[in-house]
């Protein structure tokens, strides 16, 4: 068929009809009264609330339970009736179903756990109705002043590739054209003012919520921390809903009028494309830590620049998502290391700013050296030389003395088993957290400390010649990259770790956010993981398989000869 105006018109006709059919329901959704309180459930709801919820949300629902002071983000204050996750218009009360969903699925990235597995359906509905009665400034029973407009978000317009991870959807394969269009929407609506140039939430350091508590914009590259992501973190719907309804009580507005539904889906596709695909643990709703950091064997010299293609890594976990065909690098992966606040010894850190690190590594037998690239997201860096930002790699000080699985205590070692710590302290040059997005990034002034730890209160700086270098570093759009280098062996065998190849070496990580006044043992920390300097791929891999195949062909020939001979013997009567 020739494409002419008439045929296009014919094609458009059903689309227009469809549009007319759906338009009223999307744009002119009729206002309805809020879901009133079901009074008969209140007694049961109170029972559940005072057993499960009161500890964070407080006796009167003011978000001031015993835990509140030590939580970031703080528990929700119910009194004003502001709820984040809704399908109703910005500023309106939520539907009962919205509250039920939030209680059931929890709010990822915060302390709110999913209650759906603990409470029965009846208990959830009951406690949601009790929570409605904690709202004092408005009322779910007020049918005169309150109305809710339920939004329609349409269907996801693409058929997507859900990937290979059992029980987890990855939402890959959205057309690049739509992602690029989404990026245009992102720029046009100035989302970067809060979420930063590359979406790491590094736009605005001064934001407060409705109650005056500090709050930060979401980091789009850690979508498993999106509130309301319903335990389905890669689903672009989560983003569409948030763009459409805003998050009540926070600076996140709604864009219902500014952006059409189609464009909201495209913007969601863009945001969603930034989030690396990993296996997400069903129970904790976080990516699973990579417990083994493999250091790639590298011939010749390792590149000393963080931007070198040698340090390129694919975005997604190569175990589950095949690398793009045009991927230039040879480094197969960066390893995800979960970080938590150091809440065990001394001055504890209940509100760490960094949730994970990504670590990749190479080693070179020619240089006799190993490199570790540590990168992490931190929205805002310190400008205070009293409280510098820092990140450290912790090793057992005396590897040779460890027996079996034995290791030093993971927080700065212990009296018998010391640790060797490589710590990079740094401040960014010409940096201010309120600067607009800077595509070039900021150079860092780095100083390396080498520390021997015999416990968090027994740290000493090494007096031997420095051996650890930071060969390159940068802070760009909310991401720090630090490239550590050290020779495999050093002269100081007493307190420096001597790094063998081809064996499993315990290693762990620490991180300090200067703006959060973190110092000494007040930090974020990982558990012990392992690293291994991988041997090169043996040369035999190139000649052994053909040799084995040839030998096998010989065997086949022999088998044919033998079989034919036996048959002949039968035929001639020599064998029976």
């Amino acid at each position, binding site marked *: 068929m020739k494409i002419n105006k008439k045929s296009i018109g014919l094609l458009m006709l059903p689309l227009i009809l469809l549009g007319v059919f759906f338009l009223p329901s999307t744009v002119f959704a009729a206002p309805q009264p809020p879901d009133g309180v079901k009074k008969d459930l209140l007694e049961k709801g109170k*029972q559940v609330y*005072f*057993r*499960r919820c*009161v*500890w*964070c949300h407080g*006796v009167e629902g003011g978000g001031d339970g*015993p*835990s509140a*002071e030590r939580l970031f983000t703080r528990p929700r204050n119910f009194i004003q009736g502001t709820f984040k996750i809704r399908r109703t218009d910005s500023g309106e009360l939520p539907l009962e179903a919205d509250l039920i969903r939030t209680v059931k699925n929890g709010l990822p990235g*915060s*302390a*709110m*756990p999913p209650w759906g597995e*603990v409470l029965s359906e009846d208990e959830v509905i009951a406690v949601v109705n009790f929570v409605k009665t904690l709202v004092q400034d408005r009322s779910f029973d007020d049918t005169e002043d309150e109305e809710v407009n339920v939004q329609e978000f349409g269907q996801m317009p693409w058929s997507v590739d859900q990937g290979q991870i059992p029980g987890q959807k990855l939402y890959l394969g959205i057309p690049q054209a739509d992602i690029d269009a989404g990026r245009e929407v992102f720029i046009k609506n100035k989302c970067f003012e809060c979420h930063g140039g590359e979406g790491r939430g590094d736009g605005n350091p001064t934001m407060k919520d409705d109650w005056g508590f500090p709050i930060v914009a979401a980091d789009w590259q850690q979508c498993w921390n999106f509130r309301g992501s319903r335990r389905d973190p890669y689903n672009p719907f989560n983003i569409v809903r948030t763009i459409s309804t805003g998050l009540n009580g926070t600076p996140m507005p709604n864009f219902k009028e500014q952006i059409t539904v189609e464009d909201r889906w495209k913007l969601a596709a863009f945001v969603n494309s930034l989030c690396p695909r990993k296996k997400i*643990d069903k*129970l*904790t709703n*976080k990516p*699973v*830590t990579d*417990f*083994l950091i*493999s250091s790639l064997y590298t011939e010749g010299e390792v590149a000393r620049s963080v931007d070198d293609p040698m340090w390129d890594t694919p975005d997604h976990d190569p175990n589950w998502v095949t690398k793009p065909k045009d991927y230039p690098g040879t480094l197969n992966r960066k390893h995800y290391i*979960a970080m*938590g*606040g150091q*809440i*065990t*010894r001394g001055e*504890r850190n*209940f509100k760490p700013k960094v949730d994970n690190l990504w670590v990749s590594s190479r080693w070179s037998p020619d240089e006799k050296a190993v490199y570790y690239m540590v990168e992490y997201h931190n929205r805002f860096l310190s400008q205070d030389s009293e409280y510098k930002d820092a990140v450290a790699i912790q090793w057992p000080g005396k590897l040779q003395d460890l027996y079996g*699985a*034995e*290791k*030093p*205590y*993971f927080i700065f070692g*212990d009296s018998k088993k010391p640790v060797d710590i490589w710590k990079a302290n740094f401040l960014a040059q010409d940096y201010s957290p309120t600067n607009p997005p800077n595509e070039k990034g900021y150079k860092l002034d780095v100083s390396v400390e080498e520390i021997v730890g015999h416990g968090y209160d027994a740290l000493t700086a090494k007096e031997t010649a420095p051996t650890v270098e930071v060969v390159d570093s940068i802070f760009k759009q909310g991401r720090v990259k630090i490239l550590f280098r050290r020779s495999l062996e050093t002269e100081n065998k007493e307190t420096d770790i001597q790094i063998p190849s081809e064996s*499993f070496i315990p290693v762990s990580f620490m991180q300090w956010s200067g703006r959060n006044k973190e110092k000494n043992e007040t930090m974020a920390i*990982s*558990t*012990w*993981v*392992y690293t291994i300097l991988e*041997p090169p791929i043996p040369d*035999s*891999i190139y000649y*052994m*398989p053909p040799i*084995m*195949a040839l030998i*096998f*062909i010989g065997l*086949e020939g022999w088998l*044919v000869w033998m*079989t*034919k001979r036996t*048959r002949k013997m039968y035929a001639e009567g020599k064998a029976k």
Partner: protein
Amino acid sequence: MNKTFISFLVFVGTLVGFHMGVFPIFTPKEPTWVINRYVYFLCIIATLIIVNIVLRLKPPISLNALVVWSLGFYFYKFILYPPIPWTLFITYMMLWSIGTFLFISQDEETFREFRKPIVKMIIGEYKLARIVVFAALPILVGFGTYKALIPKFQEPVELRTVHPAPPATTRVHGKTYTLETQKNPYRIDEQDKYQKSFPFLDADKQEYMKNVTEGGTVFFQNCHYCHGDQLNGLGMFSHVFNPTPANFVDPGTIAMLRESFLFWRVSKGGPGLPNESTPWSSAMPPWEEHLTTEQIWKVILFEYWYTGWHPRTFDDESSIVGVKE
């Protein structure tokens, strides 16, 4: 078309059809006496037998052997539940292969019949089959060699004792406690009486709930980061640490421990563990550094009240009369 070939197609078709279409139906979340994976497997076998009989296919012994062996493989790989480790899988498959071999070599005639197509393939009577098999096998061997030579690494597996034997006594804040006899000083009444009480609201009416409220307050300022708001070991930092934090809702933790054991574990934390419990990676603080003795006992009281478990008790506290000394 050759009947043997039809029979082969029937086998492959049945297996694929059942696996794609019927398997999900027979593996619901809660299997019943009829709808379960083993019944599903019997259905496959019945289908195969019935189809072969109805169509009078009379498959040769070599195809029968292939079918029997493959069904064994399918059973151990997909049907048997929970899934078995691969070492056990290899052992089972060896036994199954021997069984299949016994089946084909039960007498001279079946064995000869089994050998017949193989011999014909080798000497070239089945030309196409010989080309395919003789070309494919060396390639497979080469590929296997490649797989075996390429270096692969996985982090070492570490085992640890979750509930180590406690010491006889423990010294906390300058006072020595004998764990054998030590009781929780705040367990002043039967816990079950307070299951419907409200923390905070009833704290000034009931002494017991006052202690529970104070214990809960300590818990939600210190412990929930790891042990979770639901006390199920899934707090917001729980995924960071290895070993993972204890789940108090599980019947294998506080439900089978004595309160004095908890008192020792809470007071001394990770550093107080013996080597078999990997003290170097436990994130449990020695809580005597952060809490008072009273707070530790109250938080233990709270954990039992919240989960509804009762602490384990011995002899004189038991309601069953034993041998009198």
